[in-house]
């Protein structure tokens, strides 16, 4: 044993205590101070954002290498998918296309009618949202947050704040953009809130992510609020971020307790938060409406805030009908159908 230890020390070319330089404690103090300074800078000031962007674009080749195995697997999986599977999928897609073509015709008619009515009301024209199809590269690596990274970034004109939707509803919001990728915070993340409206009765509320399990909460609603289990929540559109009428969640559980003035409402997201791969990034143009709308709003003597903007055409009518009045997203079909349906139901 003694001989072993002796040799073990011998095998190092120079004794460790000569080559180590500053003591570990000195290094610990120095680097801890440096880390703390970095954390303070990054969380309180915005200096490091550019640096982060540049470093991430530097990392992109590495990310491509890391993605290669799974990409290759997906590619080969697609290549070897069976004839039967493809036929079935084709038939289903044809059926879907037929149904959607019918819906689309109806949509064209309705949007034309809507435009005419808006002209009559001298209200703002519905703005068409810019949308980009993106694919989820990977889920966020931090266990504390619910995020996904998609393969479109500032190179593809993605801006922070754009809404991310899939075929069935809202997934989240773009919170950070890099040149080739961007980070989408999911609606189930604790830090994300989304303005919603109950489809059944038009009640407005704000849904917060729960953070832990894939659910959302509707806090601060009174215990006697008119919400039932199974109610569908859609985006209200009054935030100027999400297009109105997109499905968000459905009420899963509603509890009231005598010791709390608020109802405890848990909702399940409608969109395939954990399992969709393609997402649509929809951003509502910001600069354009403010310049266009100012004169009209000034005439009306109103403050041009996003909430007001959405409510202007509704002012003369029942406020509960907001979704049928605001912008119809031409790119997303399904929610539009819902929207028109809800409009009919209310009429």
């Amino acid at each position, binding site marked *: 044993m003694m001989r*072993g*230890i002796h*040799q*073990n020390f*011998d*095998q*190092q*070319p*120079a004794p*460790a205590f000569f*080559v*180590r*330089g500053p003591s*570990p*404690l000195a*290094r*610990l103090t120095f*680097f*801890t101070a*440096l*880390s*703390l*300074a*970095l*954390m303070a*800078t*990054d*969380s309180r000031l915005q200096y*490091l954002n550019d640096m*982060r962007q540049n*470093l*991430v674009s530097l*990392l992109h080749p*590495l*990310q491509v*290498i*890391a*993605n290669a*195995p*799974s990409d290759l697997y997906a590619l080969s999986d697609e290549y070897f998918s069976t004839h039967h599977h493809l036929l079935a999928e084709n038939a289903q897609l044809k059926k879907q296309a037929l149904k959607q073509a019918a819906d689309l015709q109806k949509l064209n008619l309705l949007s034309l009618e809507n435009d005419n009515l808006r002209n009559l009301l001298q209200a703002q024209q519905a703005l068409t949202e810019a949308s980009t199809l993106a694919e989820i*590269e*990977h*889920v*966020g*690596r*931090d*266990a*504390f*947050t619910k*995020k996904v*990274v998609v393969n479109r970034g500032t190179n593809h004109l993605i801006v922070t704040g754009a809404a991310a939707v899939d075929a069935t509803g809202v997934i989240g919001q773009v919170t*950070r953009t890099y040149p080739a990728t961007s*980070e989408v915070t999911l609606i189930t993340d*604790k*830090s994300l809130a989304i303005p919603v409206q109950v489809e059944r009765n038009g009640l407005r509320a704000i849904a917060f992510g729960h*953070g*832990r399990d894939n659910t959302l909460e509707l806090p601060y609603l009174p215990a006697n609020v008119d919400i039932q289990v199974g109610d569908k929540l859609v985006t209200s559109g009054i935030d100027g971020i999400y297009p109105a009428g997109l499905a968000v969640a459905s009420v899963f559980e509603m509890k009231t307790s005598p010791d709390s003035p608020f109802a405890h409402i848990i909702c399940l997201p409608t969109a395939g938060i*954990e399992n969709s791969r393609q997402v649509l990034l929809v951003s509502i143009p910001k600069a354009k409406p403010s310049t266009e709308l100012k004169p009209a709003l000034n005439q009306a003597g109103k403050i041009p805030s996003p909430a007001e903007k959405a409510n202007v055409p509704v002012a003369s009518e029942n406020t509960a009908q907001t979704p049928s009045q605001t912008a119809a997203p031409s790119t997303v079909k399904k929610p539009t159908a819902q929207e028109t349906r809800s409009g009919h139901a209310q009429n």
Partner: protein
Amino acid sequence: MHKIKIQSVYLSLLLAYICILFPWSNFVLSFRPDFMLLVILFWLLRAPNLCSVGTAWFMGLWVDLAMGGIFGQYALAYTITAFFAVIYQRRLVLFSKTQQLVYVFSLLILAQIILLILKAFSGHQFIGWSYFIPSVSGVLLWQLAVSLGLNTGRHSHGQ
């Protein structure tokens, strides 16, 4: 006895980083060991003249970048963990294999606890005890590497 080349240290750190960048799915993500910390600990124990607290800090910054959180969190966690690894490094030759495993496990847990505290300060809540699974899988990976013949600083004359 051959000298450990600095290139092999950098190459292994790069490989560990690519492992972190893999597109892990949600389920596997909760089991993923902290490859970077494992590699850093390995070099800290094996070749303290090539890999120091500063290396741990520097690699921590890159991990911070990959994780997308506030800069400096992983850097700080790695720095403190590396410090505790280094001060006991010379005693490691006297440790038995089990002692070494316990040592590595407690270092991995230490890093996670530091991270948890930092995350708590920035407003996140504890996600449950499954948070510590990566430390367990990390130490299992360490054991696997040792049983596959990786020399972790003990009995290095045998090679």
